[in-house]
């Protein structure tokens, strides 16, 4: 068989994913030959593999940056365009940060498997951003959720961990089924699985069936972005998994879900007849999501649960960005900017609090944050910056994120969107209550760290990740064009 230039060109959209999968397979194979020594459970072995996969991610990121990204390539399943380019950057960024965060935290008996699963799911995310076909989209989404289940199960092996794994597995399968059901309706109507062809065919033939198909597909994706009422798993799974996994769960599936939603809804080709119903659906979901997320986050006393609910609230904001995009048919920049800011500030925060306890699956109470700045200045300040960014205060990237969403909502002059913007402002204020509470705790003079046995604070990679994320939020405020 002769390899033609064209065939190579067809691989360009997916080469980061291919590289990651290859690296993941190699890691997995190495893992087979590593004798599982039972006494090694408490030693930290996995460092080498973590550094290796971080290096792979960085190399691939670098080559993606310098590859001929200006040219658009397309095959029947994948395509490079603006969305896939920025989406892949986002995937690799999140991948690097999560890998860096887990350098000291991978379960030592399964370090290879752990890191190969991480590589697989980042590859899945990269594939989602490049998909131009319902089939490839679905398969890529599954490439994220199956390693996720594995990761959940190997990273925490107690009852809570098992419960979280099982819940995630069952509900994720449920939502996949819903997505597939919707996709089958759409395929039945259009006779094609290509997303462009689909949108075009439905534009010519808008029926109730098409609405149902779209709503089901969106509902399937809504699970991944933890939109209400598909959010229930979030708090249980977050508190039942290790902290790095919670960081992963709050970012990777969310990016995947939103990028997929942009692909299905955000294209300028979307039929005008579909817009009102899609808009109503999105805004309703968004408002319910942010309100519920914020109100529930307010009554939590445990960092991980609080972050679970606050991440639900952030999903609500992003969905409003998506709604704005639907109305004006504008670029997907607002959503991507928010996602980028969200990724760094959330992973930064998780990285920071994951250093506070010796074992990553222990609960971190809000009280543990008291007076952290006076104990460990770098950590306290970085966490404070991340929290400021989560509120959306200027000098941080989170400000631009919220600013872009509000701008998107207010520019078209639509009454419904204006209402949504007001609602979002109220929600942002509610959100500020619990974030400011964290801020006060971090910088209060009474410290929880008199009892030093609680803290390890020796997890250098996680601290560095946290500081790096905090710096990035500041840099992105000054140079927003880099986002």
């Amino acid at each position, binding site marked *: 068989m002769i390899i033609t230039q064209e065939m190579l060109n067809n691989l360009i959209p997916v080469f980061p994913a291919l590289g990651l999968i290859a690296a993941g397979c190699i890691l997995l194979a190495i893992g087979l030959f590593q004798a599982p020594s039972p006494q090694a459970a408490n030693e930290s072995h996995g460092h080498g593999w973590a550094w290796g996969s971080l290096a792979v991610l960085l190399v691939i990121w670098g080559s993606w940056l310098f590859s001929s990204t200006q040219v658009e390539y397309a095959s029947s399943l994948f395509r490079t365009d603006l969305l896939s380019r920025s989406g892949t950057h986002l995937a690799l960024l999140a991948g690097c940060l999560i890998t860096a965060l887990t350098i000291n935290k991978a379960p030592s008996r399964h370090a290879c498997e752990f890191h190969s699963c991480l590589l697989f799911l980042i590859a899945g995310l990269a594939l989602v951003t490049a998909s131009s076909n319902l089939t490839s989209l679905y398969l890529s989404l599954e490439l994220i959720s199956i390693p996720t289940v594995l990761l959940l199960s190997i990273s925490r092996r107690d009852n809570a961990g098992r419960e979280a794994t*099982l*819940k995630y597995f*069952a*509900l994720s399968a*449920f*939502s996949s089924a*819903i997505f597939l059901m919707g996709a089958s309706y759409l395929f039945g109507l259009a006779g094609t699985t290509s997303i462009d062809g689909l949108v075009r065919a439905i534009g010519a033939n808008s029926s*109730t069936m098409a*609405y*149902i198909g*779209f*709503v*089901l597909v*969106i*509902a399937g994706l809504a*699970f991944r972005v933890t939109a*209400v*009422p*598909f959010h*229930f*798993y979030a*708090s*249980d799974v977050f508190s039942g998994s290790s902290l790095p996994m919670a960081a992963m769960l709050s970012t990777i599936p969310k990016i995947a879900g939103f990028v997929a939603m942009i692909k299905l809804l955000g294209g300028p080709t979307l039929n005008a007849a579909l817009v*009102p*119903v899609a808009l*109503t*659906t999105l805004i*309703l*979901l968004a408002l319910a999501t942010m*309100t*519920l997320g*914020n*109100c*529930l*986050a*307010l*009554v939590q006393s445990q960092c991980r649960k609080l972050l679970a609910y606050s991440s639900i609230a952030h999903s609500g904001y992003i969905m409003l960005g998506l709604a704005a995009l639907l109305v004006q048919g504008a670029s997907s920049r607002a959503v991507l900017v928010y996602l980028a800011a969200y990724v760094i500030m959330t992973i930064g925060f998780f990285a920071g609090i994951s250093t506070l306890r010796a074992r990553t699956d222990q609960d971190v109470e809000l009280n543990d944050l008291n007076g952290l700045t006076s104990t460990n*200045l770098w950590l306290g*300040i970085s966490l404070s910056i991340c929290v400021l960014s989560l509120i959306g205060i200027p000098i941080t990237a989170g400000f631009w994120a919220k600013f*872009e969403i509000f*701008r998107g909502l207010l*520019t078209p002059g639509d009454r419904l969107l204006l209402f949504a913007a007001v609602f979002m402002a109220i929600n942002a204020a*509610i959100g500020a*209550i619990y974030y400011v509470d964290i801020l006060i705790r971090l910088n209060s003079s009474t410290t929880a760290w008199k009892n030093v046995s609680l803290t390890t604070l020796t997890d250098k990679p996680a601290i560095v990740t946290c500081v790096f994320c905090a710096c990035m939020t500041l840099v992105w405020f*000054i*140079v*927003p*064009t880099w986002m």
Partner: protein
Amino acid sequence: MLNLVWLIPLVLMLALLAGVLICLFRKGAELAHVPTIVGLSISSAVSLILLFTSQGGVHVAITEGYTWLSLGGMHVPITARLDGIGLIQLNVVTCISLLVAVYARGYMLGDPGYARFFAIISAFVFAMVMLVLVGNLFVLYAFWEGVGLCSYLLIGHWYRRPSAAKAAMKAFLVNRLADCAFLVGILLLWHGIGLVGAENLATVGRLDFDVIFDAVPALAQRQPDLLWWVGLLLLIGAIGKSAQFPFHVWLPDAMEGPTPVSALIHATTMVTAGVYLLARMSPLLLLTPDVLLIAGWLGAITAVLGGLIALFQDDLKRVLAYSTVSQLGLLFLAFGAGVNGELLPLAVVAAMFHLITHAFFKALLFLTAGNVMHAMGDCIDMRKFGGLRKVLPSTHILFLIGALALVGAPPLAGFWSKEGILGLLTLEIGNPQYGSVFAIWLFMGLLSTLLTAIYTFRAYLRTFWGDVKLPAQAGAHPHEATAMMLAPLYILAVGSALIGLVIASTGALAEFVLPIPFLTDPHAHPHAGWWLVIASVGLVMAGATIAYYSISTSGVAAKRSGVPARFAELTSNRFYLDEVFYFCLVAPTQHLSKMVGIFDSQFIDRVIRRGATIPSAIGGRLRTYQTGVLPNYALTMALGIVALVALAFLRG
């Protein structure tokens, strides 16, 4: 080459960053001056290079630093505008600040806030440099506020001292008052430029100086009233920063800060901002002569008022502070001469000239006063010391040079620049429209020269001559400042002595400053008539004599009886202007805020507190649905889907 200019703010920003890190981590505080001094050295070197490479072909160069924000129609680039005014101001700011920072290294040694001090100095100079550089009025305003903030932090450096905290607050609030007007003026100008056809320009781009200068002639034709208001409001902003009557009240109190800060504020980084603004906006002011008339009157009043108040102050630094007020009055007086449009270019040149010389000798005077203060154990009351020429010989000579430059003794710097301003007023004294005004201004200018001579020599004689008298705080053996502190003073002294002669003899300043739109160099430089030179030198000598007699005849304090006593009391109480401010502005505001406070706590707070409980109540209620039971979750999801599909049917 021109892009080199970005190095200046960059190194200062890095110095600031380093300073902040030192403060945060409380490590290496004893080296805190290094980043500031290195940053200032680089930036003054760069600005000197720019100054000398741009000679001859002076032109306006605009370089874009980076685009901060580009969002749809909103495009916010940070641009630098390099022209004569900007370059001169840049050099004055960076060079004098460098000298002051070197001095401060010795002066502030051992201060607990040493690291904080140098970090804020970096920020202060950074804000001022950016203020001078930027090519957009709105961005200028941002750094204008930055300068205000840094001055607040520096004046309140010893924040545990109530008087320092109060002075900082006063400086900040008085500046805010004027800045408010300035901001309204900027927005009004923005609106006005939109009216004359630039409405398609991006939000902030409409306030680029070039756009403004292009638009003002049309604006003057179509909306003269609006332009008048813009000019007036910009003037209010300028007199706030430059401490002109009636906003001068903050400046004398500002000497509560460490002495190097006073030197910075008085000589370069703060009060000159207002003058710079007027020079920068001179193409606009050209079209609003009435505003320039107001500026001239305010300047004349301030020049005389500052001089009068300085006469009877017992605090050495306060004398110098009021002298700054008075000298800046002269600068505004020079702008007033621009009321006759043809003179405006010369007025700008004369103002810039005096600004440069004043920066040198005022920095010198303040820093020598700092030496005195250091030696006297932080006592600065002239009633408590005297005869210091034997104790502090170097400081004595340096102060004398500064004082001679200030009073305008030939051939020191102040002589040339002051003659420039007064000579300007003589040019049009026969003008039918403004002749009488010019005559009055000239008289007031000469009066202020006399007053300057009196108070300066009085302060000099009281401090350095007479019998040696030391305050208790000074200890047994007060000592001269270290070489490290004296070195910058010698440089300043040389500058104070020579810079006027250098600039006046080359005559290059006008050529350099004047490529301002609509302002052409008339090539007719004002030659102060001989009678004016003789008159002002005579006034200086008269002032010196009066000062000598007022001290020798009545000891330290002037005899206070009859009308002179009333007058002395009035001036030493600063004409009760602070009290007028208090009763007109502060007291009503306090009453209003008390009432608003009651409304706030009784009504708004109650509503908000009640409202704030709602979200957590909702959260508490919703919590019960988080059962942890998997089938419940799946059921809710299914119900959600059914609801969404039903919605699709309803809408479809």
